[in-house]
């Protein structure tokens, strides 16, 4: 580890983002974004579609690199890490994909056992017990021998969660964990996220649009728009903080600071009316 990529870990902040700037296909996704994610808390990142919430998670895990700025995870700069350092860091980070991303060749048991088999030389009996413990925690011990295509959306999400916590990570990133779930499955996932945070102290970053769900479990909410954090605060009060951003986003208004129309040239010119007038 070089000195350039190591910084002093801050006890209160697990992820520190400074001046993050990302431009994709000419569109500014992040514009000198600053953000602190507190250790041991559930932080929810909200914002309109296409605002870069998933991209932000990819930056935190080093799956994508920014054009400028720094991201410190537990005091270490993700951008300066070699592949080996990045993989080492990821062993301490769980990631719940929007579509669960279970390995379709393996059954539920082998999906959860996969990281253990890849990174440890534990005896089979220990792997078996560890996997069954994680599956018991998400309520799916009885589904250990089912294949991913035999699971409902909620069950697949819970299996992915069991796989994400198999190494007891310091940080879990949830990318839209409630999308497509019925109320029962949603509450099950909600309860699991809360339990993991409160009992194991795992820092959680939750990307979601479901304010009702976020209100129940998040300690802090950040609203992203136009590449910056435009509002943040307590999830129970942020919707009524009076700013135009929060009023539009949480009120579901079609137009406002978050524009209805994608940037485009002059309408009349594009239709050919301007030339006809001449």
């Amino acid at each position: 580890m070089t000195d350039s990529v190591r910084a002093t870990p801050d006890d209160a902040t697990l992820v520190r983002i400074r001046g993050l700037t990302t431009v994709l296909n000419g569109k500014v996704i992040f514009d000198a974004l600053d953000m602190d994610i507190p250790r041991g808390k559930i932080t929810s990142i909200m914002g309109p579609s296409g605002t870069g919430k998933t991209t932000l998670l990819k930056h935190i895990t080093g799956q994508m690199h920014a054009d400028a700025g720094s991201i410190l995870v537990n005091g270490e700069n993700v951008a300066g890490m070699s592949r080996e350092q990045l993989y080492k860091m990821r062993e301490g980070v769980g990631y719940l994909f929007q579509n669960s991303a279970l390995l379709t060749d393996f059954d539920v048991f082998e999906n959860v056992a996969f990281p253990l088999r890849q990174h440890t030389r534990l005896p089979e009996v220990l792997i078996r017990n560890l996997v069954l413990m994680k599956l018991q925690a998400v309520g799916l011990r009885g589904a250990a021998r089912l294949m991913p295509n035999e699971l409902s959306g909620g069950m697949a999400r819970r299996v992915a969660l069991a796989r994400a916590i198999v190494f007891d990570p310091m940080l879990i990133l949830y990318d839209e964990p409630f999308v497509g779930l019925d109320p029962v499955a949603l509450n099950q996932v909600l309860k699991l996220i809360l339990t993991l945070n409160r009992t194991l102290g795992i820092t959680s970053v939750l990307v979601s649009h479901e304010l009702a769900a976020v209100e129940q479990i998040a300690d802090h909410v950040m609203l992203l728009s136009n590449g910056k954090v435009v509002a943040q605060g307590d999830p129970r009060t942020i919707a009524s903080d009076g700013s135009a951003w929060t009023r539009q986003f949480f009120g579901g208004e079609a137009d406002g600071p978050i524009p209805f129309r994608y940037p485009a040239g002059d309408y009349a010119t594009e239709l050919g009316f301007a030339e006809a007038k001449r």
Partner: protein
Amino acid sequence: MNQHTPQGNNVVTQSLTQIGNCGLFLLTLLAAIPRSFRYVRETIRQLWFVGAMSLTIIMVCGLFVGMVLMLQLYHVLSIFGGTSASGMVVALSVYRELGPVVTALLFAGRAGTAITAEIGLMRATDQISAMEMMAVDPIAYVGTPRFLAGLIAMPLLCCVFCAMAVFGGHLVGVTWLGIDNGTFWSNMTAQVDVRTDIVNGVLLKSLAFGAVVSLIAVFQGFTTPPTSEGVAYATTRTVVASSIAILALDFVLTAFLM
């Protein structure tokens, strides 16, 4: 003409870029071989999928190629009274050209497309990203085992194809058309040279074709846009690019090995 030049240049540039990227990808795959040694079981599993599962099509096609070749040759050679040489000509045609080339084309259609589609769908469903997030190198775990499996399977499949083609030729020539069994085998064994025909023809060519087809299949899988349409185009590109590469490489190898 002028209007078409930029587009033509663009296609040439894109093709050259693809070939360059494919070459760089080959280096990545080769560099990952030491890391993929811990995934020997995955390589064996892939060997089963691309090798053993391709056996039926290879055996059936080999049989029919040998049968039709013997039928054609018998009628041509009978004009000159040289039907006793049919077995030898079937064997030389199959060992030197038809065996490696047809096996590789069948392999590209059966196993190459399966590899591309599987990896492409793994990307589309975030399985590759999930591996990255679990600190598992997808090139070493997914790419290299499939590449090595193709490399190992192709010469073996080619041997099976050749054996079945000779058997098909024997079936038609000796059993059906009445060529003497002893003449069939003695002419063949007298003319077939182990180094020129078996090592250079069957083994070296099929090894080279196996490497090219597997490389193209894995490369297309890893670089396709992760969408249904992207995967569909990638599988088509695997067949097209593999077929062109096999036939072009066959010419180059034949020129050098003869």
